């Protein structure tokens, strides 16, 4: 059952349907940095991340403000993310570094994989559960409903969602736990996604 969700589209972030943050257009810092400061996180490694990792990281931190994750053992939370462009924004920057500058950047290369976002979140939280990243043509609520079947045996909770950055940020992350009360619902996911 989906207990908490976070929707970031363009300049707005909703948490469980309510406005959580709106980008200050007069602030020269980009939205990710504004959100980082708003959340009062002290994690210098954030600044080295690429946009995909920053987006997944921030949305997970926002969800953690509502969910008590201490209830779960360190390998009981799984992560599943998807988008339709992999990490192509960073790929292009890396291509520039080795084809034009002729000095391939290791710091950029590290982020030329779409699953580094799950790596960064697991490092931050010391989560040892399973994780995966998929490339889908478009947001697909049915896909996420199927992923709920991960919630059995060892995995007790799921941090999952859609991390789309192109043409602009269009992200949706939810936290789900196995409960008897309410089964996982495609309809609920769709409603939450279409809230923005």
């Amino acid at each position, binding site marked *: 059952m989906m207990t908490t969700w976070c929707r970031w589209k363009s300049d707005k972030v909703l948490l469980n349907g309510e406005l959580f943050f709106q980008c200050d257009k007069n602030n020269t810092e980009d939205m990710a940095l504004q959100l980082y400061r708003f959340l009062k996180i002290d994690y210098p490694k954030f600044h080295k991340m690429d946009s995909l990792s920053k987006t997944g990281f921030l949305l997970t931190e926002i969800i953690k403000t509502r969910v008590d994750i201490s209830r779960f053992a360190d390998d009981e939370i799984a992560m599943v993310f998807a988008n339709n462009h992999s990490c192509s924004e960073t790929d292009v920057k890396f291509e520039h570094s080795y084809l034009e500058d002729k000095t391939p950047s290791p710091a950029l290369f590290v982020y030329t994989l779409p699953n580094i976002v799950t790596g960064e979140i697991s490092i931050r939280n010391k989560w040892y559960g*399973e994780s995966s990243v998929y490339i889908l043509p478009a947001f697909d609520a049915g896909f996420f409903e199927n992923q709920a079947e991960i919630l059995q045996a060892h995995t007790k909770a799921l941090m999952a969602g859609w991390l789309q950055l192109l043409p602009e940020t269009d992200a949706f992350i939810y936290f789900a736990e196995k409960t008897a009360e309410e089964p996982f619902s495609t309809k609920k996911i769709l409603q939450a996604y279409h809230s923005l």
Partner: protein
Amino acid sequence: MSVFVTGMGIISAIGNNVVENLSSLQERRSGIRKTKLTCHPQEIYAAPVNLSDDDLRNRFQVSNTPHSRTSLLGIAAVAEAWGHNKHLPNVRTAFIGSTSVGGMDKTEKYYRQVLEGNSADFSLVQTHDSGNTSEKIAHHFGIKGYINTLSTACSSAANALMLAARMLEHGHADRIVAGGSDPLTGFTISGFQSLMIYDEDWCKPFDENRNGLNLGEGAAYLVLENEKSISATGNKPLCLLKGWSNAADAYHQTASSPEGKGATLAMKNAIEKSGVALSDISYINAHGTGTKNNDLSESTALQNIFGKNIPPFSSTKAFTGHTLAAAGAIEAVYSVLSIVHQVLLPGLNYTNVMSETGLTPVTEYKPCQVNAVLSNSFGFGGNNTSLIFKKI
């Protein structure tokens, strides 16, 4: 509810199909050589497939629309795996592909053309995205149902096989073609060189003096079926895919933890899932890239699980190079071969034992009773997957 492996196909630097790969393994013939590739300015040790894109197109009668090398390699492997399979109305068939490069082999060509000021061929960019890679392959074989693409670095194809096994277990499909594909590109070569983990010589997995990896290219796909599918298709099972697990290392974006925590969890949980006893694991096909970091971390993880009784193990990456996303599937094929032919596979270019562990890999192609094989694929981002294949 069992998951049967009924078909497999492979293309790598050591062979364009299963028989050729097996022969190279048996004769200890590596596909890694010092070479000057068009995509990279320096000579390096790498393992290219010996067929050009045009060769692949012609051989497999690929339509004239744009195809990345990633798709072409995938088509070659699926052609062999799919073989004489037919589409049947009561057999739900799915396709799960994986890649880390996607269509980058063509995109970087386009980029170079633009930089040189020549008129650049836009069709090179049309195959860029990873999802397109899978769709092109599935389309070639008329697979229309569930199509998905995974991208989790070096564990990608192993994760594709794991997802396929889970989907079969949960009744979401009856027959699944799953695997991965990656070509050699300037992108990945430059990247690994910038991380200073690309060996300037032939790589030496698990050797004391190892100094990094060599990249390779290739593709491999397996056909997995449930019982219902087998009774409809009449395909003969080669072995079972009995266990699988994925775990995070939660340590660093590109390095593995010294205590091998993620690797240990992945292996432990896969073995538990399989129901196979530790003593029944006859051979381990290790991730064994040849980097200082992986081989030590993985060895530590093996010791964590098996204590002093580590089964015979080897890395086949000194044959094929590290094929990135495809590695998990290429090595799954080798694991199945180990079971079908009842052999241990050799690790090449090994001379000196690692002083920290004292562990020696298998170095000969050796007949042996093989009950179950553990195959490891550990990706950047701390994404660790282990699979267990078992003799029927």
